[in-house]
């Protein structure tokens, strides 16, 4: 049988050893709304929500060509206005833009805002949001656990592996650091001048660090309830955005915080989003909305196909810079249906990535994480994704790199999918150099993470056609407003970018989160106190103790009982236990030392309740022989003055004092008269 449960208001300062803050707080460590990294202090736990790595910093660097590029190596060094050339080894100029000639570096989440070694757990919502994980787990003294779903971990590993691989295989002799000097940075042209926290930029991690980081991950399944120190329960829910992507519910017995990050309501390959479980949240933290709110993904896919077909029909090649997992599955599925109708059956499609093979195969085995349609295919049995058929029929070929087999099979015109979408490293750099000079070729940007103009800057002048078809299936603002209406959280917390129209379209007031009360916003390096106070804590009562209670009905429907017990607190669970039995009367006359570890149990005094009606009380006093009774009203109650007896009775809301001069019998008499008006229990 379950123990009876009590909910008692929690006092802010109590006897817990760890000082606990009654407020929940969010520490914002990343300024990027779609690559979040926030820390939630909730109850007595410290939870990191996602671990996104902002890679836009790499756009300031020159591309890393796999094959020596005469063009890049001949770029002139950058010279200051005054003619000084001390930076010309570090900075190169290309078509009016200045780039750092060094291994690309990434902008890490804030590490100074709080001591990251105190983070208890890290919750990962999707594979794009875990790329900074090795920096956190391996450099900050982190000793906790990371929770993520299996596809998130597997595909996240592939993304990290590809990243490490494409940077490590092009070792760069020099590493630029002089430009980061604050005095020097001031002199640089934009965007380098305005780059934030350059001192925090770090080189890419290594494979051993990746492995060490991933070993700290514990796999979870959707709707699985994970207890954190008894205080908090966390649950991943399907978010509909990518294979294994999740939103998280973080709740105690009386509070619920939902973390919505990278969700999609579109029907693509993953399991649909679980919205119902987000209902009744006190706070909903909303991140990872679409980066291109004006582009409808269906329209963009159409645009992608049309441009691809037009290029190939004119004898040109198509380059699609992309991640090795995610939207590429949907694009391949679309092309599968489209290529025959568009007469492109003979055009080869190449997918080049060190993890291409694993990515294509992984996608086929995570059946339980797929949408219903794809799940049913598995029972037929058929591969859930049609790219299996494209591979079988040799229409889609995949290679780990441009070396080896690929160079033998390579036929033009063709379509190449390869990374990295920043165009700074990976095999895409090679194709940009190879195809950039011909206007027959087209590069089609489908990943929304990087500005395509910035990505193309070091390749200028460029003859190749560029098409921007960002496909971002994450929630748009219309869907968000429907979602919020549906789940009705009491408060919404989101990055500040979502509380105003995009800077380039200031009139589009429809492109912001619209809810009541207005959302609370945060920005990088800010701490936000969540707008509610913890008021209750759950305490269990042992059955034997509950048995001994004698409730007394003081109002219809309300019964009270006094409880004397020992409050036992362990692992954030509170239990009221029977008090130890009163010490036996000593058997011998010998005085025994009272045991120290058992608290002494005093006999219980009854508790009083009720209020004293002054008029009736005065009448009672007069009945009992007190004459000359005077009543004075005070701010808090009344003073009854017995002039003859030189006695005061102070009656206030929560106390009654009898002040008389050493006349104990009088005091007792008066006390008993007062008590007649009160209930005891």
């Amino acid at each position, binding site marked *: 049988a379950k123990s009876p449960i009590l909910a008692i208001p929690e006092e802010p300062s109590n006897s817990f050893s760890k000082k606990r803050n009654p407020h929940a707080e969010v520490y914002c460590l990343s300024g990027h709304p779609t690559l979040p990294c926030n820390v939630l202090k909730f109850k007595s736990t410290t939870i990191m929500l996602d671990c996104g790595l902002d890679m836009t910093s790499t756009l300031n660097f020159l591309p890393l060509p796999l094959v020596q590029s005469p063009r890049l190596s001949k770029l002139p060094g950058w010279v200051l206005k005054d003619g000084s050339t001390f930076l010309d080894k570090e900075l190169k100029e290309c078509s009016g833009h200045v780039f750092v000639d060094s291994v690309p570096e990434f902008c890490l989440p804030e590490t100074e805002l709080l001591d990251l070694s105190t983070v208890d757990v890290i919750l990962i919502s999707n594979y794009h949001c875990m790329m900074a994980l090795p920096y956190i787990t391996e450099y900050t003294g982190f000793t906790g656990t990371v929770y993520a779903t299996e596809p998130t971990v597997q595909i996240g590993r592939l993304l990290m592996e590809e990243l490490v691989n494409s940077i490590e295989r092009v070792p760069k002799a020099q590493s630029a650091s002089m430009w980061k000097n604050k005095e020097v940075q001031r002199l640089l042209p934009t965007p380098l001048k305005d780059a934030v926290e350059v001192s925090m930029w770090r080189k890419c991690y290594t494979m051993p660090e990746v492995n060490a980081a991933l070993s700290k991950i514990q796999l979870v399944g959707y709707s699985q309830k994970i207890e954190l120190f008894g205080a908090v329960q966390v649950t991943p829910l399907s978010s509909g955005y990518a294979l294994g992507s999740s939103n998280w519910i973080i709740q105690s017995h009386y509070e619920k915080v939902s973390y919505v990050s990278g969700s999609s309501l579109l029907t693509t390959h993953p399991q649909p989003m679980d919205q119902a479980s987000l209902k009744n949240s006190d706070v909903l933290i909303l991140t990872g909305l679409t980066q291109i709110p004006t582009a409808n993904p269906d329209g963009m896919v*159409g645009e992608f196909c049309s*441009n691809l077909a*037009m290029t190939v*029909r004119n004898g040109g090649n198509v380059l699609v810079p992309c991640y090795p997992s995610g939207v590429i599955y949907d694009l391949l599925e679309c092309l599968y249906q489209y290529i025959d*109708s*568009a007469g492109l059956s003979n055009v080869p499609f190449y997918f080049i990535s060190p993890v291409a093979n694993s990515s294509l195969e992984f996608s086929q085995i995570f059946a339980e994480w797929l949408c219903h349609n794809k799940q049913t295919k598995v029972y037929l049995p058929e591969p859930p994704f049609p790219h299996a058929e494209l591979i079988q029929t040799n229409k889609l070929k995949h290679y780990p790199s441009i070396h080896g087999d690929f160079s033998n099979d390579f036929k033009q015109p063709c379509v190449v999918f390869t990374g990295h979408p920043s165009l700074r490293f990976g095999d895409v750099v090679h194709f940009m150099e190879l195809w950039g000079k011909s206007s027959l070729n087209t590069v089609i940007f489908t990943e929304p993470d990087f500005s395509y103009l910035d990505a193309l800057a070091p390749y200028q002048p460029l003859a190749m056609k560029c098409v921007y078809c960002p496909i971002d299936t994450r929630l748009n603002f219309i869907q968000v407003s429907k979602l919020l209406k549906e789940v009705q959280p009491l408060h919404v917390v989101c990055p500040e970018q979502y509380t105003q129209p995009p800077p380039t*379209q200031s*009139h589009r007031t*429809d492109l912001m989160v619209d809810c009541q009360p207005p959302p609370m916003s945060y920005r990088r390096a800010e701490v936000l106190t969540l707008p509610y106070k913890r008021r209750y804590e759950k305490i269990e009562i042992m059955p034997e103790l509950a048995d001994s209670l004698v409730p007394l009905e003081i109002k219809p429907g309300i019964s009270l009982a006094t409880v004397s017990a020992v409050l036992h607190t362990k692992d954030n669970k509170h239990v009221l236990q029977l008090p130890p039995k009163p010490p036996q009367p000593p058997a011998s006359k010998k005085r025994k030392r009272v045991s120290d570890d058992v608290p002494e149990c005093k006999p219980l005094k009854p508790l009083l309740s009720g209020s004293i009606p002054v008029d009736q009380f005065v009448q009672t006093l007069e009945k009992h022989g007190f004459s000359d009774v005077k009543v004075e009203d005070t701010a808090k109650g009344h003073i009854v003055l017995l002039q003859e007896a030189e006695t005061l009775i102070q009656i206030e809301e929560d106390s009654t004092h009898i002040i008389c001069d050493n006349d104990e019998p009088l005091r007792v008499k008066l006390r008993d008269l007062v008590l007649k008006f009160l209930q005891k229990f």
Partner: protein
Amino acid sequence: MREDRSPGSDSLFYGLFLGNTWSLDPTAKLVQDNPCLTEFITSVLALPEPSPSILSFTLRLAGILAASENRFQLLQQEKLLVRLFGRDGPLNSALWEDASVRSGWVEGVHSMMHHQPALRFLCDGGGIDVIFTLQGDPSLFVASAAGQLLVHMLTLSVESEMTKPLSTKDCDWPACAQMIIKRIEDSLQSSSSSHIEQSLKLLTSLFGSCRATWTEVLWLGIAKQIESFLTEETVQAQHMLANLLLSMAWSPVFCDTEGGFWALVTSALEHLTPVQAGPLAVGLLRLYKCPQDVRIQALTVLLQPMDCILRAASQPLEYAGLLDESVSDPATVESLLSSKSSCVSLLCQTLAHLEELLSLIHLPVDLPYTSLLHSLMTILQFCNGFLSPASPLGSTISRILINSFRVQRSALDVLAALSERKGCDTLLGSLFDVLLAYLESPNTSPTVLKKTFQATSKWLVRLQELSCSNSQWQQTEKILEDVFLVLQKRLCSPCWEVRDSSLEFLTALIKCLRDQDEFRQSLLSSEVLKLTENLLEDPESYVRASAVTAVGHLAFITYFAPESPAIGNQYNKENTVAKLQEILSTDPEGFPRRAVISIFTKWLRQGCTGQLEDTERFVSRVIQTVEHDLDWEVRLGGLELVEVFCSQTICQLGLPKCPYAPVSSAVTSSIHQNESLHIFCRAKVFNFLFQSLCDCDKPVGQRACDILLGLRCNFYPVSTLKDSQGAEDSRAGRSVAWLQRTLRQGSLAQSFPTDGGNGVDFQDPESMLLALGTIDLEELHDELNKSSDHVEKSPQSLLQDILATVGTIEENEADCY
């Protein structure tokens, strides 16, 4: 009938049949001669629980019978009418709950309402109350029929019972009319909005159907009350007033009067909400007899939302607004436009009204076309988020309109309609910016894109006309270049609807602009040609069909033009013809084949198929392909081609079609006759035509017969028709006689000899001349027009089809009504 409930014996059908037959004979003889009719009614009335459908039928039947006064009296004598329509009839039984019984009752009463005795029978029996109650019947059919019945009774009463004309001072209405009018007046004064609504509906229908002067007398009695509905907010009747006023405006009784009525209309335009006033305004603008000031006011009401949009967008001063002043408070329109729930519907309604107006050939008022166009462009820019409004109202509207496909479609419709009106030329540049933004945006939905294409093609024609007159070729060339660029992309769309509408757009452009050099140059220098030809092999049959049509029209520019450009496409003229023929003979879907045959006909009409010999070979090939096509529309298309071919051949060989043309000498005429006959025989025209006479699809047979009749006129002047008697002597005569017999069997002649096995040689000119002269084509023609197993339009057949398809379950029998 009472017992039988099988599908064939549907009571409604019998009712209609009997009604039509008996209404011709007004005497009582029919009832007297057929006692079974009254017996039937009596026996139905005697049933303890008649089925609702039988009872309903009986009510209708009795009504039809009682339509003539004589038969009415007879049925009255037998007390049948009282038992059916009176207080003790079904009216007060449980069966009245059934809507079909109530419907039967109303229809029965309506049928009998042709004479005074019937009118009195009903009025005296309290029937008027019943009908008034039925106006609010939950079944809309019954409610509507009750309203119509009241109008009918009122008109009948006034027109048959009046002894002297009515005047406003002395309105001595006949008794029945008096009752109805009293009820109308009472309900107008009641506080029940449903009663008021019913009476307004009744009046609307009365004024719409009856144009007699007494309606004015009736109106004068209630005008004050109705006027008060405009201002009283407690009564929710405003929305009905627009219809009432419109129906009155069409009646000469009211529209010719001075003052009163039009003052009320003006007041209505002021007081009704923009949504309610819209239909009234557009109705008034269609009216020729509307006073000019009212017309201007109506136009103002209609343009107010468009004006508000312009102002909200805070455009430069030159387009400050559409209106000098507004009829009602602009705040009303502004508040409607700033509410999410009303903005889209108000705009769509306004736009629909404007399109309706613009589609009128003659508009009684001038619209401010430039401002209107500007307002439309503003709406379209709000919808795709390209406009940043400065005013708060503008931001609200823009927020509501973004991505509203409904508004986009309506605005584009109006835009297309506006292209035919002159006076918007200054805005052409920015208009094409808006249209191109829509064509280019991947967010444009396929249906909106289709509308954009339609509007663009119309405006391109306008642009071309203008650039001819003002020589602004550069702007036109730039726009055409942009259009073709985006068209190329759209032709590659993965969405077949987009490919399809892109091809339709291309066809529309070629149709209108193929004679313009700039257009031809822009088109030929783009990739559109190649892409269009690729789409002949599209997996979607609609797209293939559209591609066929587009390629067919492109051919006028590429292959058939006098100085056809040398272009290196995969198809040259011969290849294209061969490709289309391949589609005609092998495409598994009907649409592309239909498209091919209609393009071939078009080519033939325009004389693009070469010299006569080439054309003969071409037609012959096509005939052999289509004669066995499974799709009757393709076969019909083939016949159309043959018809064009025949008339062209005859024309070319000099046989004058026009009866007034100078008659050529008999000798040359017969030589030419002979020659054309030979050509037709060689091209296997007759084989196809005679075979088509027995086609299982009648339109094919009819068309073939028409063509044969036309040919006979050419080969046999009226006086020289041969007598078929005696012609059987020759071999040809015998075979033609056989053909005649075969053809008489019509479509039953399943085994029509295609190989001439029975001796008919369809390629023998002599036999064919004889066949044309002797076979009674007129008779065949009549026969084909009579039989109707293909296009069956009678309701009886439709009903039978429905019943046969769904089988008989009791419920669906009711549905068939």
